[in-house]
């Protein structure tokens, strides 16, 4: 059988760093093909290349044996390739029916006609969504249904689903997979990305595993099982070289006093009745797949977002219940959160290193009417540039001029100047070069050695295993497993994260 879609040695680089490299991929006609891999393995990039949302740096794509090069998603759509994104692409102000017909409106449109057509179409898909409802009023699962319906409505030959079942209930999932089978029988080929390995094994014809942007294996789903897929997902030959084997290098630190106790914390569908403790003098690692509620939990602790108003659980800092509506009182109490999205939330990129660090300092030491002392700003900048080895000419250098690793160090310095007792690092080495990774790790270890309570959230297993004295695994909004450093293996952690 000749493939309907073929990718040959596809590579996509961002500023010289490959997101996918030399990946070969084929999709047969009437095939359901699952793409699995860890966070950052390159699944989304690869599918976005197919859907025309990302232009590859090199490589070739063949559709029906003919080379194609999509510049924008509209090109791919015209060629019969539609993608249902994980992030919603619906227009919230429009109704469900309007969204389904968006871009395919006729010259004269009658709302009643659109609503009836949408109603019939949604019913044919077994999706219980009111076509007249505004998308803004829908829950995540119903929005996902509308998104799927829109892709199906476009009569695509190839449909790509990015985590289609993440927000669906079991019954909705059942309907979704039924729909997938029906689409397949009508001649549609499907690529779907999933973290639920069971789904891939059960519903796909073939499975491709990506790791670190590279292709690991493609085989028939019947030839693979859950364990072999997990092994393929996490078996990282380079991990030892980057992070070194932890084993004999360092014994786990003993826990100190309980600094933080999170009890039955809830926030919508993202954080569900989760409980855990954090101890002084230890690095507590937190691993989970995207959507498992790690970042949301950390942000609730730090006052960036609020927990549920009714029965949202409790957070106790040094035994005292705390509830923050904004980060400021959390910072004053000694909780700081080093964001995963430094460009958006971490710093002011057009301001200098010194100014950024001083802003952090002012959060705890300054008041509304405090005067900025420029000599102090320079002193702080110099002190922290030396302490965490920021490579910059001086403290007056703008943050935008620094590399990713040095920018991250500025974010860390901005947090540490607040003299915290609990520091939460969310993806501390994302987009950071290998040299800076080692320095940041060293620094995190130093903080724990100094008696601080440290939480490290990371999607990268070698990082979690290398850094943590204990590892918490989150799934579906709650902590489901705890490993000591001695017990943790990549396979065990991943198994807990997906089952």
């Amino acid at each position, binding site marked *: 059988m000749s493939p309907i879609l073929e990718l040959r040695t596809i590579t996509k680089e961002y500023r010289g760093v490959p997101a996918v490299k030399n990946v070969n991929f084929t999709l047969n006609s009437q095939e359901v093909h699952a793409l699995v891999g860890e966070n950052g393995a390159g699944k989304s990039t690869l599918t976005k290349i197919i859907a025309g949302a990302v232009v590859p740096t090199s490589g070739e794509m063949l559709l029906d044996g003919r080379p194609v090069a999509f510049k924008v998603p509209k090109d791919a759509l015209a060629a019969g390739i539609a993608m249902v994104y994980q992030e919603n692409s619906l227009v919230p102000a429009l109704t469900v029916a309007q969204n389904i017909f968006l871009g395919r409106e006729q010259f004269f449109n009658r709302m009643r006609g659109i609503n009836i057509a949408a109603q019939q179409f949604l019913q044919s898909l077994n999706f219980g969504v009111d076509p007249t409802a505004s998308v803004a009023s829908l829950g995540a699962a119903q929005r996902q249904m509308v998104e799927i319906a829109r892709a199906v409505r476009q009569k695509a030959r190839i449909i790509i689903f990015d985590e289609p079942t993440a927000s669906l209930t079991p019954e909705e999932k059942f309907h979704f997979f039924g729909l997938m089978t029906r689409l397949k029988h009508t001649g549609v080929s499907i690529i779907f990305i999933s973290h*639920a390995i069971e789904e891939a094994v059960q519903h796909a014809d073939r499975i491709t595993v990506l790791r670190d942007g590279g292709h690991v294996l493609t085989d028939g789903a019947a030839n693979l099982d859950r364990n072999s897929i997990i092994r393929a997902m996490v078996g990282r030959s380079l991990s030892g070289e980057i992070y070194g084997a932890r084993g004999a290098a360092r014994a786990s630190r003993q826990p100190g*006093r309980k600094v933080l106790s999170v009890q039955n914390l809830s926030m919508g569908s993202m954080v569900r009745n989760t*409980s855990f403790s954090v101890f002084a003098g230890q690095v507590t690692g937190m691993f989970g797949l995207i959507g498992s509620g790690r970042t949301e939990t950390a942000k609730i602790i730090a006052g960036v977002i609020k927990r549920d108003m009714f029965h949202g659980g409790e957070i106790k800092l040094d035994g005292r219940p705390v509830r923050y509506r904004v980060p400021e009182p959390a910072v004053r109490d000694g909780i700081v959160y080093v964001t995963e999205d430094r460009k958006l939330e971490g710093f002011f990129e057009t301001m200098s290193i010194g100014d950024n660090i001083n802003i952090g300092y002012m959060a705890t030491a300054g008041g509304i009417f405090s005067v900025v002392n420029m000599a102090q700003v320079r002193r702080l900048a110099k002190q922290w540039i030396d302490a965490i080895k920021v490579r910059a000419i001086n403290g007056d250098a703008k943050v935008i001029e620094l590399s990713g690793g040095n920018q991250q160090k500025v974010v860390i310095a901005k947090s540490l100047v607040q003299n915290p007792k609990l520091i939460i690092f969310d993806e501390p080495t994302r987009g950071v070069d290998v040299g800076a990774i080692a320095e940041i790790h060293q620094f995190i270890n130093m903080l724990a050695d100094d008696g601080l309570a440290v939480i490290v959230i990371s999607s990268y297993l070698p990082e979690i295993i290398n850094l943590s004295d204990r590892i918490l695994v989150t799934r579906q909004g709650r902590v489901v497993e705890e490993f000591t450093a001695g017990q943790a293996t990549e396979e065990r952690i991943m198994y807990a994260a997906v089952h």
Partner: protein
Amino acid sequence: MLRGVIDRFVGRGEAAVTVPPMDGALRPNQALERASVAAEVRAPDNLVSYRGDVLFSSGHELRALGSNSVLRSFERPISCVAAAADGRLAVGLLGAEVVLVHPDGSTNLLPLKVTAHATALAFHEDALIVCRGSAQYNPDQWKRDLMEAGVSKPGSGSVVLIPRDSAHRRLADGLRWPYGAVARDGQVIVSESWSHRLLVLDPAGAAPPRPVLSDLPGYPARICASSDGGLWLAVFAPRSQLIEFVLREDGYRRRMLNEIDSDFWIAPTMANGRSFLEPIQGGALKQMGVLKPWAPSRSYGLVIKLNATFEPVVSFHSRTDGTRHGTTSVLEHHERLYVASNGGDVIVCLRADEAVEQ
């Protein structure tokens, strides 16, 4: 007052139905389930070290573990025991006073007014420390005391120090079921069960009680000293959101206490699974998209080792699927750790320095 109403409405502050997690040093394992059996006996309790042997109580009898014999029998069931270095034994009896047994076998009774409802005893130098769980209820009615107190009602328990030859003095009162006591380094450490914490009391009675370990995930019972300067703490039942919720619902509890047999209350218990009439929650847990029936356990077995600064360092568990529940008493004796499972009708033994395989 307004804050209290709002808290109750939104479920936060005192009205937050939350339970601290068992993680870190309290991470569950099966150490108590795997431990070897030292004795199989009905409802064992009150392990004490006495003249090179381990004594424990079972019903009316005070028994020696080594010789597996009855040392002494009493007219009433024993509620608490303490042994002094000079060979004296103090034995609290249900519905009666504390009996002091001297090394020569003679006995004398301590005043009922001071020692009634004794839940725990300990010797501090020459003096006897008596924990009185409640002013109304005998130790075997602990469940009723908890259910009547709920989470907010102040306790009626107290701790009294009775010197050998002078008048007694009250070290603390208004406690919510003091259930264990040990003297160490000139301090008296008491477990306050319904408040899930440990308190340090001044034997001179000059300083107010000071909490040193709070927010335990279960109901603490007896305490004993460990050989390395720390403590062993027995925890006889777990806290759960269901029970915490019931403890906040006064009307519901009133009806439950009036209409239902105490064995079937939604309350902590020493052992469960003995009758199909026991309550379960109609709850469910979604795992891999499959909805599974689930009910929280009302009983558990847990022993916690605390270091000199009262931080938990290691713990031994008998989990929901185990049988060695209702661990009311613990004793370190000759590098061995003995644990009395009141609900499991067994005394188990393990190495005190056991590295727990979790």
